[in-house]
């Protein structure tokens, strides 16, 4: 993968951006969103723009084609495209470029496609608008292009509407649309952020392929360091509207010179790292909003661990580390990269595993054959009268796990695999269709409204979205005080003291008591959400994607906080996430879910090394790893996740399984009809027909050079 990274360094330069400064007009005057950004993109090269949200990545992309909206404007600098200056060009001139020689791919394919126009028409329009060709020819070429982006059955897709194809396929159509006119420059703005990890991997493969075939110059915008490490040749790190580091991607990952880049790399767990052997280093503070950015000093100084007086004196220039590698830090040549793995003090959790529950002494939560079905509403007349066959979405089907005290169970799987429904069933937000759930030895199959208050108190939840986890109408203090009052954990006159104690426990100052949610940043809101869950002093905390909506630097702080809380209070946790590196880092045990069922279950380290369930193997090979030197197997799943309304017979994974044909006799016919058995590996269990001995022969998915 890293072979062709620099051999096209001598190719033609397509885009040169120099000292680009972009401002938005607001009521308080102009606010600079991007300041003095410079970079260059060559033919057949991918330049990655990374940084947290609000750092100006997208603004640069829009600035190139002057798509800034009525209140945005380029204040200074130049954008030269194929030697021609774009700044100051007329709207008509730019319009002929956009979609023809410069194409864009956006984050959400559903918003890039017109929902009421057939895909074929939308594709052909791109051609007929810019070129003089007949409609038939345009259709023919659109079909060719759909084939090129590995779209199954392209003629059929041409006749469909956007909502009739899956998200990954939509993004393929958008990419096909962008490539139709053979653009010289392709700008991709978080093209895979909205996709599942296996779909993302396939789309990234496609982008890589197209780059080699079409020799377009690419700009790839993302916040995900793993993704950028996979696709980019050159990397630009953005912080608060400024470019802080620029250079070849391998250089920057191996030898980051700006403290912000170092901080970003130190704050994400790599695949395989665990809480026992490494600490994540969050970057303190937050990205300053555009109006409050210091002008004549280093922009990162307030959050920098290495900052000195000198950093406040002037805005640093780009310092040359090597001729190609620049960093905007006056100490770029001097500071040392922090050693990555600092040992954490070992936790005192006993080796009770859920694959072998006999050894776990205190089981806090166990569920057996748990089923959560949703009745499917049908609009036919027959069902209106209660006749006809009732259909169910089998969101969770026959799931059994035991969780022992003080341990963390990670649940992973792609969207729609039932992991959220599973925890909703346990906590009583969704009615359990069938099965046993026992919490602290008490049956909890009934909905939360019928449970005993003492029981409710022991199981609390941390939610995903920081913007909706807090009620915007009440102050932080009131919202944390509510569970305290409700469960009477402390006498009435001590409630306020208790709230402040909890705020301190989640590293927030007492003055947050009176703040309203809208005055807090995403990470702070998430901390309040954690404090609220802690207020009832629960034995079990369920975290439903608690960090996936946060920026990476904040994400690690929240993970550290949750770990600390677990150490202090000894709470058990269920941790749901789609990021496999985070789950591995955080969890003791892991359950891998596919289409409503657990397919692999056991201690984290056992799940992440062979023998793998074929699905786990595919998931792991799709994880973007923030290390361009890491070697990773490429196993891509074909097709889409089948509908949970009518799951495949036999093994649910058989329709997409990449292993059964080579590893089973009769090319795995048995998987299509017979439900696979639970097989015991050394330390964990796998739901598969393929014998464990066979699975054990599989190579590890990731190989990181030492």
């Amino acid at each position, binding site marked *: 993968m890293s072979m062709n990274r620099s051999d096209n360094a001598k190719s033609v330069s397509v885009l040169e951006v120099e000292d680009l400064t972009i401002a938005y007009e607001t009521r308080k005057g102009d606010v600079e969103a991007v300041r003095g950004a410079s970079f260059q993109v060559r033919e057949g090269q991918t330049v990655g723009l990374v940084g947290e949200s609000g750092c100006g990545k997208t603004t640069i992309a829009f600035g190139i084609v002057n798509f800034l909206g009525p209140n945005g404007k380029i204040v200074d600098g130049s954008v030269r495209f194929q030697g021609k200056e774009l700044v100051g060009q007329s709207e008509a001139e730019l319009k002929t470029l956009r979609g023809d020689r410069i194409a864009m791919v956006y984050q959400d394919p559903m918003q890039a496609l017109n929902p009421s126009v057939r895909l074929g028409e939308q594709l052909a329009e791109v051609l007929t608008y810019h070129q003089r060709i007949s409609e038939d020819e345009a259709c023919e070429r659109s079909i060719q292009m759909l084939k090129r982006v590995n779209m199954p059955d392209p003629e059929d897709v041409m006749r469909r509407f956007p909502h009739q194809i899956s998200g990954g396929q939509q993004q393929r159509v958008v990419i096909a649309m962008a490539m139709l006119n053979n653009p010289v420059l392709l700008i991709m703005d978080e093209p895979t952020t909205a996709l599942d990890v296996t779909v993302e991997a396939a789309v990234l493969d496609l982008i890589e392929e197209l780059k080699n075939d079409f020799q377009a110059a690419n700009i790839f915008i993302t916040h995900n360091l793993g993704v950028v490490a996979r696709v980019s040749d050159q990397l630009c790190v953005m912080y608060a509207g400024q470019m802080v580091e620029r250079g070849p991607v391998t250089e920057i990952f191996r030898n980051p010179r700006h403290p912000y880049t170092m901080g970003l790399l130190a704050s994400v767990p790599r695949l395989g790292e665990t809480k026992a052997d490494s600490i994540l280093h969050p970057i303190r503070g937050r990205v300053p909003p555009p109006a409050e950015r210091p002008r004549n000093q280093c922009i990162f100084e307030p959050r920098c661990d290495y900052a000195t007086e000198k950093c406040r004196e002037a805005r640093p220039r780009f310092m040359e580390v090597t001729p190609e590698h620049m960093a905007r830090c006056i100490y770029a040549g001097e500071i040392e990269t922090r050693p990555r793995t600092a040992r954490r003090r070992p936790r005192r959790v006993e080796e009770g595993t859920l694959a072998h529950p006999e050894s776990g002494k205190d089981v806090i939560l166990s569920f057996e054959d748990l089923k959560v079905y949703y009745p499917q509403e049908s609009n036919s007349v027959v069902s209106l009268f209660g006749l006809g066959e009732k259909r169910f979405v089998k969101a969770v089907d026959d799931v059994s796990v035991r969780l022992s005290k003080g341990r963390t169970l990670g649940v992973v799987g792609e969207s729609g695999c039932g992991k959220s429904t599973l925890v909703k069933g346990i906590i009583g937000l969704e009615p359990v269709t069938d099965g046993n759930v026992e919490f602290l030895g008490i049956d909890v199959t009934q909905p*939360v409204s019928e449970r005993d208050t003492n029981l409710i108190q022991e199981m609390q939840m941390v939610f995903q979205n920081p913007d909706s986890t807090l009620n915007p109408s009440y102050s932080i203090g009131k919202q944390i005080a509510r569970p305290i009052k409700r469960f009477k954990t402390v006498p009435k006159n001590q409630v306020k003291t208790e709230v402040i104690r909890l705020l301190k426990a989640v590293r927030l100052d007492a003055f947050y*008591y*009176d703040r309203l949610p809208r005055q807090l940043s995403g990470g702070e809101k998430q901390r309040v959400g954690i404090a609220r869950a802690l207020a009832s002093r629960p034995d079990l905390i369920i975290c439903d994607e608690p960090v996936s909506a946060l920026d990476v630097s904040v994400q690690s702080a929240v993970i550290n906080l949750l770990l600390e809380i677990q150490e202090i209070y000894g709470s058990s946790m269920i941790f749901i996430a789609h990021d496999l590196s985070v789950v591995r880092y955080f969890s003791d045990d892991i359950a891998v879910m596919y289409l409503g069922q657990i397919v692999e279950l056991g201690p984290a380290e056992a799940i992440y090394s062979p023998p793998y369930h074929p699905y786990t193997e595919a998931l792991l090979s799709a994880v973007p790893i923030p290390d361009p030197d890491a070697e990773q197997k490429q196993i891509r799943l074909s097709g889409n996740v089948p509908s949970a309304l009518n799951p495949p017979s036999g093994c649910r994974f058989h329709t997409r399984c990449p292993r059964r044909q080579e590893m089973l006799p009769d090319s795995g016919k048995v998987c299509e009809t017979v439900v696979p058995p639970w097989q015991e590996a050394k330390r964990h269990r796998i739901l598969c027909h393929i014998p464990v001995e066979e699975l054990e022969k599989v190579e590890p998915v990731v190989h990181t050079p030492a």
Partner: protein
Amino acid sequence: MAVSRDATASIGVETRTRHLRRIWEGVSIIFASKTAMIGLAIVLFWVIVAVFAPLLTPYTPLEQDWKAPNQGPSSAHILGTDELGRDLWSRLIYGARVVLVILPLSESFLLPGGTALWGVFAALLVGTTLGLVSGYYGGWLDEIVMRLLDAMMAVPIILLYLIIMSALGASAVNVVIAITIVGTPGIARLVRSLTLDIRTREYIRAAETRGESPWYIMFVEILPNARGPIIVDAMLRVGYAIFAMGTLGFLGLGLPPPSPDWGSMVAKGREFILAGSPWAALWPSVAIASLVVGLNLLADGLREESMRYQ
């Protein structure tokens, strides 16, 4: 972790000042919008003249002057007189009292708050509750409540008013009941749609995982977050209610005859327009129109300005 008593106490004090500040923030939205300010000025004008009506005119609204019927504006009667020689200015501002300031429950017992305001308030209570319940519970309950309200909305409003008033008889309390019945479906629909959106938020999930009662969730967690649109809608509805009161009065179904009612003033005065004295019909029409326009401007301004801050 010990927190000093002083620190804790000072936080409580801050809460109170914060409360005041939040109210002030709400009020300052009105001042930020020109439209809302004009609307507020018109509405305040009518509220003030209604409150201070006895001080603003030497006549009572029922006092008849046989010598001067159907007169135009003069120094004795600034807006002129009606066919019985009653002073139009005093009838107008006493009429405003019934709309905006007092609710005559009976001859001797008056309730503060105008008929239109009470009607809208009652409609808000009923409509909000119905909207919250059907939006939060959903399912069959929602289906039944909403279809019933749809059926009510299918009847033309004027017809509905006529049916209710002719069944109940003309009195201020019955006007309140009529306004309530007519206003409820619209408010319920609005609150239901807001509830459908808000109930999907994670703070509602959090409340549910705490085992809070449905009533707590509806009125404490959901309702405060729907208040913005509800307030704007309520202002518009006060306008409609005033309009409806005028209509009912005009048709003879409003307040019983001798009392100064804008609608019945127009109805009586209309006969004399062609006879050369349009004043008795003109002033109450202007009053109704200006008050309705004022409330609309206020509501529009508030909506625009609060949207801008989101």
